[in-house]
């Protein structure tokens, strides 16, 4: 069955069979594919870990079938932190430069062509690689700016909301919209001016050019490489200064050192008993607690609503060079929806987690936000968590917890509507979907850790 995300390119498509992903190449692309194989470019990119590995399974005149390395969990651009987004952009440019030097090029620059695998950005659309025709400009440049450079610039200036662009504008951000939102002085930067201001002028031109014949346009390979290198250098130097309440969280934490260690130890101990190999930490902040499990597990996904926390998690992880960690920016109260044609082109966060099939979900310091800020009843959150994994480790901060008190105070005259926020109501509601295996109070806090097993 053809995968719903894979219809745009007539060169071939992805399909799933017996739970595995394969790539079919159509005859129209055979020449390109064979040229790439005989040049050794695929192997070159495999070795650099820039391109997802594949092996050729079968080849006949009507189709060639590749089996790519299977990825357990795909993240989409609108789930990346700032540095992840940057590295994905850099990978795309490096790839194009590297390909050019070998007389190949990328025919498109969609941000969906990149994902994270073993903690690193990787290019996954093998059929985007085609032969370079001497002295042709890069036809994907504008798409690159719409998918990568535009959202990165806006989020640098105005916050990480703009990293979500592709979620509601699947073809990237119109460069006129980017231009409009950039500060006035940004136009004095030659790279920004040339890539955003200049190219925005050609946005929408398709409508008016109607009927004009196509003159041939030339750009030498050396010039194209210069152009791409300067852009890559600019992106490499970009930094997000954003800070949110969550980044301050650990400084105004409710934990003292001892409680902190106690909680860590408890999680490590419990997980050792469970022997989970795939774990997802749904409100993992910067991964502080999740990473304690790295020694025990094969794969860990850390999600958080807060982009700076996730960015921190990613940067830490690069330093420690773990291959087991995937970081995701995601708001549990409005998780990434299924989008695109027939809402099937990019699948929802929920369905990707279900496909990933974690052994254990962790929801630490999360339930009070979901219940009190998001007004989600216990039963609904219990049902939500129960769809993901057999086991759930969840932390319940009681009414005496200072964060809970703060949220309740802010409800003022509506406060009485939340009288049901108690540990017994919580335990009762969750036991409609789970068996309680054990619970333990975190010493020195008003918080309790629960271990549940799905009914």
């Amino acid at each position, binding site marked *: 069955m053809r995968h719903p995300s894979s219809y*745009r390119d007539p060169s071939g498509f992805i399909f799933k069979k017996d739970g595995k992903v394969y790539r079919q190449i159509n005859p129209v692309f055979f020449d390109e594919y064979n040229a790439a194989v005989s040049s050794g470019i695929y192997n070159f990119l495999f070795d650099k870990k820039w391109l997802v590995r594949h092996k050729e399974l079968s080849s006949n005149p009507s189709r060639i079938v590749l089996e790519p390395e299977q990825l357990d969990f795909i993240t989409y651009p609108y789930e990346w932190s700032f540095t992840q987004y940057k590295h994905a952009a850099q990978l795309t440019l490096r790839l194009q430069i590297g390909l050019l030097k070998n007389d190949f090029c990328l025919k498109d620059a969609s941000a969906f062509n990149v994902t994270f695998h073993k903690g690193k950005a990787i290019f996954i659309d093998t059929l985007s690689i085609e032969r370079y025709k001497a002295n042709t400009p890069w036809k994907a*440049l*504008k798409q690159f700016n719409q998918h990568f450079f535009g959202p990165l610039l806006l989020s640098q200036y105005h916050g990480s909301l703009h990293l979500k662009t592709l979620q509601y504008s699947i073809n990237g951000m119109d460069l006129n919209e980017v231009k409009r939102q950039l500060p006035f002085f940004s136009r004095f930067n030659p790279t920004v001016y040339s890539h955003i201001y200049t190219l925005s002028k*050609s946005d*929408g*031109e398709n409508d008016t050019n109607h009927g004009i014949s196509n003159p041939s346009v030339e750009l030498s390979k050396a010039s194209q490489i*210069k152009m791409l290198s300067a852009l890559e250098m600019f992106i*490499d130097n970009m930094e997000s200064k954003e800070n949110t309440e969550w980044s301050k969280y650990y400084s105004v934490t409710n934990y003292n050192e001892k409680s902190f260690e106690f909680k860590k130890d408890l999680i490590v101990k419990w997980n050792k008993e469970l022997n989970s190999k795939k774990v997802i930490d749904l409100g993992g902040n910067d991964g502080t607690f999740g990473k304690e499990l790295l020694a025990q597990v094969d794969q860990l996904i850390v999600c958080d609503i807060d982009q700076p926390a996730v960015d921190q998690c990613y*940067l830490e992880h690069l330093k420690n060079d773990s291959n087991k960690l995937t970081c995701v920016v995601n708001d549990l109260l409005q998780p990434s929806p299924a989008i695109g044609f027939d809402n099937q082109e990019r699948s929802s966060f929920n369905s990707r987690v279900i496909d990933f099939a974690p052994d254990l979900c962790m929801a630490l310091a999360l339930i009070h936000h979901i219940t009190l800020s998001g007004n989600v009843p216990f039963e609904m959150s219990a049902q939500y968590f129960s769809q993901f994994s057999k086991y759930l480790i969840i932390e319940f901060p009681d009414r005496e917890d200072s964060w809970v008190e703060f949220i309740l105070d802010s409800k003022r005259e509506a406060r009485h509507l939340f009288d049901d926020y108690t540990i017994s109501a919580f335990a009762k509601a969750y036991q409609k979907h789970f068996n309680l295996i054990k619970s333990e109070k975190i010493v020195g806090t008003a918080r309790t850790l629960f271990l549940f097993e799905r009914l």
Partner: protein
Amino acid sequence: MNNLLYFDAGLGMMIAQGAIATVAGFVLFYKKIITILQGWLGIRKAAKENSFDSNYNKDTEIK
């Protein structure tokens, strides 16, 4: 007509790349000069942690 972009690069965009590349040439040249000057003056930027390259290079994992 954003959708046209997948295959239609946009003529104006193709033409503009000549100008963009010229600008980029200047930028790269300027950076090179700066780097050389900094070298003479003994200023050296610390290699960035967590750069794109370090990400891939230090990877010692065996496939």
